[in-house]
């Protein structure tokens, strides 16, 4: 393309050099050091993965490169960010605007909110070229449509005037990629670009991103919380923990010999498709060298064979329809499901496949349209409030977001005692309080937490409280609706271990809904795969993962990012 003068590139160019960077956040409670004296280098054409859990400072670091941090409250206390030999921190706002989008561009996490709904997709992709005077408007439009076709947004050729709402999340993220790449930047910052997407879509987006960047020799800083994902993509991985860089290495050597205990833990506590054990190691295990469970894969021999167990809950031709103004949508379509006592039934599928609707209709939180739900072989009847109470007592649910699922105005004690009052459990408040304390200890909290409010707990602790609340009525069956999806791997491992040990001690039955196939494999005895409201495949864990019968299941399993090079370490 002759119209774009490629930037004069020296050998040192395309090299980002962050040195001794420290970033503080000022708040009423004091100063929080979000980034603490980090060094980071990106060579030309290199793909660097930046990994860490939420709050580790990875996004702050990424945003500071383009000076996109709100200052105040953020404050860069010292350090330099050198881009092609010049310190970006000393540049003025107009000079930065010249670099943003032209030399360094960025892709954000949520493709739904990153596009302006009032402009056509083509206009938005062409805009960076026009703003930076790299092409005339007509040329820009032509290039935009070329690059959109390249990243797989074929629709643009047939309908050039399409608006963002006409595209799915995956397509919008492709649009974002096209927009970021159209100016041929030297560096691309990608902040969790696929976190909001389904696994199959995620896999496609990543391969497009990698291919496009390799072709153009663009270096990439890929920020993610998912180590497996980064391993697939990056040449080199930088791990951040509490504002510090604790390890940076080539991807292969990081997985083969991680040095820092946290990195070892991070690699191990992620339930993968390859590993199988009864308990996930947690970060604490790695901080405590005496712990026995690292690598000790106690082989689990189930005392009772799966098919010998009684069926606890069954759905027969269950259908749930939602009617909006002009059409009926079948969210759940003719589903037959049998969940056996004391087992975990995994339910996987992409977003919109009807998993959550199925879970809620089993609990009668949503009205079913037709079909039957059987508990112990008998249809569930909720005629009067007495039957309703009886039914509610035997089935509970744990939600995805522990922040939203606790009433912020009630203390933990009030939250946990209320179900007992409603269901008439315990004779008096003293007795109930004792039960609550016992429950809290069972889920790993202490009696001193009783008088606190939900906001005073971390996400993992809140989820423990939700588990305790679900257990107050001593149910037999619990629906876990994406209950660890919002958590960092280390916290996720703790909650999963808790759920497993509770299952053993109380003989609970779970319906475990998740989009994460690794987590589902770790938790489940049987798995059902859902697509467009119907169950396409049901089977034991081994059958599903080793011999998937349908094409859709195969795609789902193949799309899971895994650190192939690490496969042998854990077995």
């Amino acid at each position: 393309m002759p119209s774009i003068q490629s930037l004069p590139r020296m050998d040192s160019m395309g090299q980002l050099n962050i040195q001794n960077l420290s970033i503080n956040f000022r708040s009423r409670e004091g100063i929080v050091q979000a980034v603490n004296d980090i060094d980071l280098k990106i060579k030309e054409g290199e793909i660097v993965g930046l990994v860490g859990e939420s709050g580790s400072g990875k996004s702050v670091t990424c945003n500071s490169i383009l000076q996109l941090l709100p200052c105040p409250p953020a404050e860069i206390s010292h350090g330099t960010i050198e881009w092609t030999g010049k310190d970006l921190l000393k540049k003025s706002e107009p000079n930065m605007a010249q670099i943003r989008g032209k030399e360094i561009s960025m892709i954000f996490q949520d493709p739904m909110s990153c596009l302006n709904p009032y402009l056509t997709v083509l206009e938005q992709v062409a805009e960076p070229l026009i703003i930076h005077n790299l092409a005339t408007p007509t040329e820009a439009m032509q290039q935009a449509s070329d690059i959109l076709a390249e990243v797989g947004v074929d629709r643009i050729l047939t309908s050039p005037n399409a608006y963002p709402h006409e595209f799915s999340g995956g397509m919008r993220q492709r649009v974002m990629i096209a927009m970021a790449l159209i100016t041929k930047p030297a560096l691309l910052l990608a902040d969790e670009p696929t976190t909001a997407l389904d696994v199959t879509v995620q896999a496609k987006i990543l391969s497009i991103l990698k291919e496009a960047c390799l072709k153009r020799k663009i270096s990439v800083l890929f920020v993610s919380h998912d180590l497996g994902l980064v391993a697939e993509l990056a040449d080199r991985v930088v791990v951040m923990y509490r504002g510090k860089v604790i390890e940076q290495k080539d991807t292969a050597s990081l997985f083969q010999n991680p040095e820092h205990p946290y990195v070892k833990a991070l690699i191990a506590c992620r339930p993968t498709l390859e590993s199988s054990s009864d308990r996930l190691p947690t970060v604490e295990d790695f901080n405590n060298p005496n712990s026995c469970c690292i690598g000790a894969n106690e082989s689990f021999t189930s005392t009772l064979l799966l098919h010998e167990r009684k069926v606890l809950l069954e759905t027969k031709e269950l259908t749930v329809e939602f009617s909006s103004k002009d059409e009926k949508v079948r969210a759940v379509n003719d589903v037959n499901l049998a969940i056996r006592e004391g087992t975990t039934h995994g339910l996987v599928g992409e977003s919109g496949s009807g998993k959550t609707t199925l879970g809620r209709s089993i609990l009668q939180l949503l009205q079913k349209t037709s079909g039957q739900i059987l508990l112990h072989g008998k249809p569930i009847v909720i005629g009067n409030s007495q039957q309703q109470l009886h039914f509610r007592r035997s089935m509970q649910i744990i939600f995805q977001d522990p922040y939203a699922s606790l009433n912020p105005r009630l203390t933990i004690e009030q939250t946990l005692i209320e179900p007992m009052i409603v269901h008439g459990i315990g004779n008096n408040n003293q007795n109930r309080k004792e039960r609550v304390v016992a429950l809290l200890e069972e889920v790993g909290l202490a009696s001193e937490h009783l008088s606190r409010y939900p906001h005073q707990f971390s996400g993992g602790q809140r989820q423990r409280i939700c588990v305790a609340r679900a257990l107050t009525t001593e149910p037999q069956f619990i629906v876990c609706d994406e209950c660890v999806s919002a958590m960092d791997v280390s916290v996720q491992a703790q909650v999963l271990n808790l759920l497993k040990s509770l299952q053993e001690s109380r003989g609970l039955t779970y319906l475990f809904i998740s989009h994460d196939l690794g987590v589902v494999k770790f938790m489940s005895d049987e798995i059902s795969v859902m697509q467009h409201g119907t169950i396409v495949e049901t089977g034991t864990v081994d059958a599903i993962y080793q011999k998937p019968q349908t094409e859709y299941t195969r795609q789902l399993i193949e799309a899971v990012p895994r650190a192939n090079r690490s496969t042998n370490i854990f077995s």
Partner: protein
Amino acid sequence: MSMQTSNSLGKDAWLRLRANRMAMLSLFVLIGIFIISLLGPLLSSFSYQEQNLDKVFQPPDKEHFLGTDNLGRDLFARTTYGGRISLAVGLLATLVSLLIGVSYGMIAGYAGGRIDSFMMRGVDVLYSLPFIIFVILLMVLFGRNFLLLFIAIGAVEWLTMARITRAQTLNLKNTEFIEAARALGYSHLRIIFRHILPNLLGPIIVYATLTVPAVMLLEAVLSFLGLGVQAPMSSWGSLIKEGAEKMDAAPWLLLFPGLFFCVTLFALNFLGDGLRDALDPKSSQDG
């Protein structure tokens, strides 16, 4: 860990409110104004309706320390007497509007669907009725009664409250903790009053503190039309209205009732803010 026993929301809220200096100061100011309004007419050596045509438009002096009006009535007696009526009208009407509006809005929002649209269309119809005509109609039907004035004003002011409450309830209804409450088998009434209502308090209190002054001013308008408080009785609203007309000749007639009115409103606003924060467990940093 100073709190060993579990505190109710009310007790926690009181502890937090006590720590808020502005709110506590406002609370004392309000209590002071209440006491002056209750006791002022009794303490004053003049009655609110006693005319003294020898001493019209008297500026504040030792005898009439807030001055007198065009008929020589003592302004202190009139202002404190008017305070009783204004405060009673303002608070009672707000209370009525709160009771009707919040329960109506919560029921509509929680029920959803057809019941919701039906109830809210009813609100729209009432909105479209001209307020004055509505009040005159009530007066004609029930006769002129002081209590009725509160109810009439309250019965108009609840509409906005119902809308605010409904919108907030709709948002809350879909949160997971309400769903969890349903899954635990709680009754609808329990969910509405124990789980939804406490979470609505913030916007409700803020709107209530805005309603009180609005009601006090409405009372003045009604009085002006001859529908509310009639001379020789007084209220802050009617005193301010009279004072504004005679501002050039006797500025104190506007100044003192206005001062009482403003101080009360400021205090109510600060107290409302304080209450909103105090009732929100998240606002305190320590446990």
